[in-house]
């Protein structure tokens, strides 16, 4: 193996060559390189992101030495962007590193077109007003955006993208696609070639459970007017029926069949989530539809035609007790069906592209194949504009969370993180930023939070005094550990957005460093 491949081995096992290539193609812009920004970027540089540009206009102060690993004693008085850029470059020479010594807020106000060159912008430690402006700029330019803020023991991460579609969502747990209750002709005829009453005990205990369950489902349906087990009682009886076919207690294949019996009872057809995606208005394709939606349009046609209510077959089977021969043959039958489904899908995709006036070969075979394999796991994530959330958040969600013990700390911090920006706009400092005058700051923050709640339509809602006091105590500090935690989360979200694998967070993540009862709020 070559050195870069070896270096990235542990992550290639997660997102593969395709994910890595996407990462290496990405150019990232970081706004402000305090510890939150530096730590977020560090994780991406290590992973091999293509290039980064740091925008920060500040000089390194002595206080920065205590919370930022990307500066040292020799950097005091120098450009923070320059210092962080040099230290980050040390971590991976394959990454193109750049910095611009300028205040991000100036850039947002004076040069909005600057941002359109990037794949993604990580905006750290911005106040509300700048967030709203940057969000508009990035939406317009179709640049992905992740906001990150550390504030004492609190903080947030917020993804903002108009639409993020995922083919390879890699769910942790997902029911395999075996079609035990809906076998296609080739699977059925293969199953029929196998005799469950075979006298050889070795052969008997090496019949794969897929075969056992398809046969049992048939047997059941014949004696139950073509229905499959549905009540709890029937399901139990079905398992007993499977058990009755065992000829000795050490038959693992029958044990597996009983454990997998629920797959026979699983509903046929596509899930409500996939249904929802195919009903999305974007699935009515037009000339500017993305490849994803073109393929969804093809999927929709497939399901109501060749698929007979089902998506294209995934084509893989889990390991199960079996003779080698039967397992390999079974595997081939699933693969053949998946390939046949793919060919139908490919034809439909090409036809749709042609109708749209696009080059019919503009979506590659591997992409369509991957889409077919993952058709049951498609995801579409859409994010409200930050401006909309800020001016009109879900009041019911806020009030519900405030009343819930597990959520109240997090939603309290959400309000207070916004209140401190209003405070700063009014008083030209953050509450508790400087020693002295703490009592006054506390009472001012309380008033500010109250008026914010009123503006949001949460009249009569009060925040606990303890939380307000804590917020003032934090005094806009940026602690290294909080920065590392929140920056870490931000970089993980960036990886998901850039590789288009896994599922990014939906909503606003509020970090609660007091007791770790952090929450993802849908506002």
């Amino acid at each position, binding site marked *: 193996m070559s050195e870069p491949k070896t270096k990235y081995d542990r992550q290639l096992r997660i997102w593969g060559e395709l994910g890595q290539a996407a990462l290496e193609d990405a150019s990232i812009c970081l706004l402000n390189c305090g510890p939150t920004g530096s730590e977020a970027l560090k994780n991406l540089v290590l992973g091999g992101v293509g290039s980064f540009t740091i925008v920060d206009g500040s000089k390194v102060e002595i206080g920065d030495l205590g919370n930022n690993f990307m500066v*040292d004693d020799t950097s005091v008085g120098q450009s923070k962007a320059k210092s962080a850029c040099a230290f980050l470059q040390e971590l991976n020479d394959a990454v193109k590193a750049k910095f611009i010594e300028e205040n991000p807020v100036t850039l947002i106000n004076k040069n909005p077109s600057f941002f359109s060159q990037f794949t993604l912008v990580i905006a750290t430690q911005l106040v509300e007003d700048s967030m709203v402006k940057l969000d508009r700029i990035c939406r317009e330019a179709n640049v992905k955006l992740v906001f990150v803020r550390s504030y004492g023991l609190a903080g947030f991460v917020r993804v903002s993208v108009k639409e993020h579609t995922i083919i390879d969502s890699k769910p942790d747990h997902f029911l395999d696609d075996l079609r035990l209750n809906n076998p296609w002709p080739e699977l059925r005829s293969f199953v029929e070639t196998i005799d469950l009453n075979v006298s050889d005990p070795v052969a008997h205990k090496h019949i794969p459970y897929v075969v056992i369950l398809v046969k049992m489902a048939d047997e059941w349906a014949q004696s139950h007017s073509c229905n499959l087990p549905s009540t709890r009682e029937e399901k139990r009886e079905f398992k007993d029926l499977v058990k009755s076919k065992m000829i000795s207690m050490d038959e693992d294949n029958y044990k597996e069949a009983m454990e997998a019996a629920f797959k026979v009872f699983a509903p046929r057809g596509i899930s409500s989530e996939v249904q929802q995606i195919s009903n999305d208005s974007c699935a009515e394709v037009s000339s500017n539809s993305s490849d994803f939606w073109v393929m969804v349009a093809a999927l929709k046609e497939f399901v109501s035609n060749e698929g007979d209510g089902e998506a294209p077959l995934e084509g893989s089977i889990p390991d199960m*007790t079996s003779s080698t021969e039967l397992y390999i043959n079974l595997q081939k039958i699933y693969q053949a069906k998946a390939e046949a489904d793919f060919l139908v899908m490919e034809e439909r995709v090409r036809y749709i592209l042609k109708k749209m006036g696009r080059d019919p070969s503009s979506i590659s075979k591997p992409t369509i194949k991957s889409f077919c394999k993952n058709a049951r796991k498609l995801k579409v994530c859409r994010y409200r504009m930050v401006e909309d959330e800020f001016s009109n958040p879900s009041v019911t969600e806020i009030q519900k969370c405030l009343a819930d013990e597990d959520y109240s700390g997090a939603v309290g911090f959400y309000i207070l993180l916004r209140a401190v920006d209003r405070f700063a706009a009014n008083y*030209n400092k953050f509450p508790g930023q400087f020693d002295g005058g703490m009592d006054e700051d506390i009472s001012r923050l309380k008033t500010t939070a109250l008026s914010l709640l009123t503006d949001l339509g949460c009249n009569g809602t009060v925040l606990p005094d303890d939380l307000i006091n804590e917020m003032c105590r934090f005094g806009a500090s940026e602690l290294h550990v909080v920065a590392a935690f929140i920056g870490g989360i931000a970089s993980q979200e960036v990886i998901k957005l850039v590789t288009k694998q896994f599922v990014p967070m939906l909503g606003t993540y509020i970090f609660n460093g007091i007791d770790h009862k952090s929450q993802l709020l849908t506002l």
Partner: protein
Amino acid sequence: MADLDVPQSKSRDLDKLLLRPGNLVGPDFDPGTELRDDMREYVRILVVGAGGLGCELLKDLALSGFSNLDVIDMDRIEVTNLNRQFLFRLEDVGKPKAEVAAKRVMERVSGVKIVPHFSRIEDKEIEFYNDFSIIALGLDSIEARRYINGVACGFLEYDEDDTPRRETMKPMVDGGTEGFKGHARVIVPGVTPCFECTIWLFPPQVKFPLCTLAETPRNAAHCIEYAHLIKWPEVHGGKSFDPDEPEHMKWVYDEAIKRAELFGIPGVTYSLTQGVVKNIIPAIASTNAIISAACTLETLKIVSGCSKTLANYLTYNGGEGLHTKVTEFVRDKECLVCGPGILIELDTSITLQKFIEMLEEHPKLLLSKASVKHGKNSLYMQAPPVLEEMHRPNLSKPLYDLMGRVQKDTIHVFGTALKNEEKQSSLTKLRVVFKGADGVADMDTAIGA
């Protein structure tokens, strides 16, 4: 908004938490410069492991007000570490992790002292671990966690009424990651569940049945494990397989390919061969950063009381959306490791030899080949041979004498225990009480003897 007239200190941000009083804080929080300075001066923290978590822990601790750190790791740097173990460079490959990690953090953060230990954790004296205020675990093996947990819980003493004594508690913070998932937990022996109390959180590793490998292989992993576990010993006799030897790995890969072709099984690659044989856990920088930060934040809270403590187990899952969850696990009151210990009543005349034999039959222990340690003193050691021979004369002496003729005390026994039909190394604490020694009435709780 920065006020340029205010003199700056390196602990500008941390001071907000350490110098100011708060309402949502620990019961013993005493804010002030003394707290901050004492943390720098007197608190010593041990980081176990200088890998993905360990590198992050060292950096995080160094930037969280701690100046006296030690790090222990027996491994050397490999190329595959570089995607996340950010203190290492390509030119460091082959050097001891602990030494390079310590050096890099000290270069960057002035005033921090980190002592590296290029050593196995088992090779340190037990007392070595007692010098630290907190132990931070950045490990990837259950065995190593169990060992450290056993040592830290071994320091815990109980009063007569089985109340744990606070000054003997050795807190640990523990992190672990796999891909986009991870956990961080706080273990305060005697207060929160120790690693052993919740050992069920780690399900046993699934192994393929040998008959599948030998007779009915179905997938690529089966072919690889056949080459690794069956074919290698068959062909190489006594020569043991070394997963870090590229030629050995290549041989297993070639054999796995042959077997896969024979059975028509697809999917054997060199990368998969390494993954299966070395049981590689995928790892990325971001997850390690998140989990280590959580562990360090809890370390800061335990030491300073500057906020509430995590109670007591945080799980993080960033694969599908983002989920964090806090679970409050409860202690196993009868835990062999952090519990009051197994009380054993003995005659003052019983010899060490007899005592070791007894451990083997004791229903709660079933401990064979036991080594025995009393505080810093080894009473008997099974290995290495030199030390075994040195301690052998002790076997015929009464345990009472060897323990300095105290009426009762705690001892540690280390050996092989039979747990879930599997032999595992086990370190256990015993509370030994001698019958007939001064002031002891007959105890009805007596077991053994």
